[in-house]
């Protein structure tokens, strides 16, 4: 379902959400996103998002563990995630409320 929603399934937001509870490396992010949201992030998509997020200072790389490198969300990344999530929640609340109202009138 989320795959069909385009910007709602924005890989960058999924990565930020995955890192919100602690640092993870790439494979752990894909497993977490698949388990929690049902979206399978491909490797190219994931690292495209990681590169952009890192360039904008929203996540930062930690020292590598063997070849896997964990990433951590920054304070700016947490603020960005909070703003985006709040916006999505308002849209979700609006949609659910109006659907409920429409059902009640029919």
């Amino acid at each position: 379902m989320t795959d069909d929603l385009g910007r709602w399934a924005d890989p960058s937001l999924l990565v930020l959400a995955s890192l919100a509870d602690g640092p993870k490396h790439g494979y752990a992010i894909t497993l977490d996103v698949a388990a929690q949201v049902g979206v399978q992030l491909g490797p190219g998509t994931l690292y495209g998002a990681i590169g952009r997020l890192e360039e904008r200072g929203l996540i930062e790389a930690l020292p590598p563990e063997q070849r896997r490198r964990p990433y951590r969300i920054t304070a700016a990344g947490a603020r960005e995630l909070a703003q985006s999530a709040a916006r999505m929640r308002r849209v979700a609340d609006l949609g659910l409320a109006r659907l409920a109202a429409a059902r009640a009138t029919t």
Partner: protein
Amino acid sequence: MTGDHDGLTRRDPDAAGRIPDPVFVRALLSLYPRRWRARYGAEFAALLVDMAGPARWPARACLIADAAAGALDARLTALGGSAMPDRIRRSMATVACAVVVFIIAGAGFQKMTEYSDFRAAAHEHAAIAVSFNILRIAAILAGVAVLAGALPVAWSAIRQAVAARRTDLIRPMVIGPAAVIGWLVIVAIIARSVRHPQVHSAANIAAVAAVALLGAAAAAACAWSAVAIVRRADLAPGLLRTEVVPMAVLTACMAVVTGADISWGLALRAADGALFRSDNGLLATAVPPSWAGGVIVLAAVTAVTAAATVRAARTLRTPAP
């Protein structure tokens, strides 16, 4: 993590005992730009091996297609490193730092020459006056070139920051000016409160040291702000290309300023040796070290700016992506 589970090829350990990445991983990595591979290659290869392990063929085909699409994306974005915009951004960031140092050196020259003795020498000796006036005109033109290059970038960055609430752009836009304003306020407070009659008194030295240290911090904040904005803002390739023109003008102006500063010092030494050897330099020190130090700094930032401008100009031969 590096077990032979790709099913595509048999892999034997190398001389160091490590099992090399599967052929498909190496092939996919080779699609990415060199700089991208240097930064992400090892962890990306590990991810591909991890993801390919449990995947069956339909899923693995999707994985390979996604990784190949990611390579195209990496080559099209600035992170790919080979694109013209990325190179010009690096040159712009270098020039921005050089401009900050140039302004500090220029302020030092202005501070030193504001004493009445230097003005009187300029009135009496045409060679000193000509050098001084050329320096000032070139410095003003350099300022115009900086504004011509900076304003379009600033305008573009401000629009993005407001439209998309880009906190990563808003932060440097606020920090740089705030650092300068804060420094000016502190300088004003120190200038009012510390007025010891002896130039080299402990109170004056402490005040000057505080002003200098805080000024260096403010300059560093300004340089960081400029570099952050140049690196983070989404700037059109056309805009980046035009940035080479003000950079070239700025380089020429910096070279003239440096030459005029050298000429000014030599003219002063020839025309008024006593003033040249006096203690009217920066912080009431000898003039020759103050003058020579300024010349060295100006020459260095001019060389750095020229090198960055040449690098940027060379990238104009590269077609825009």
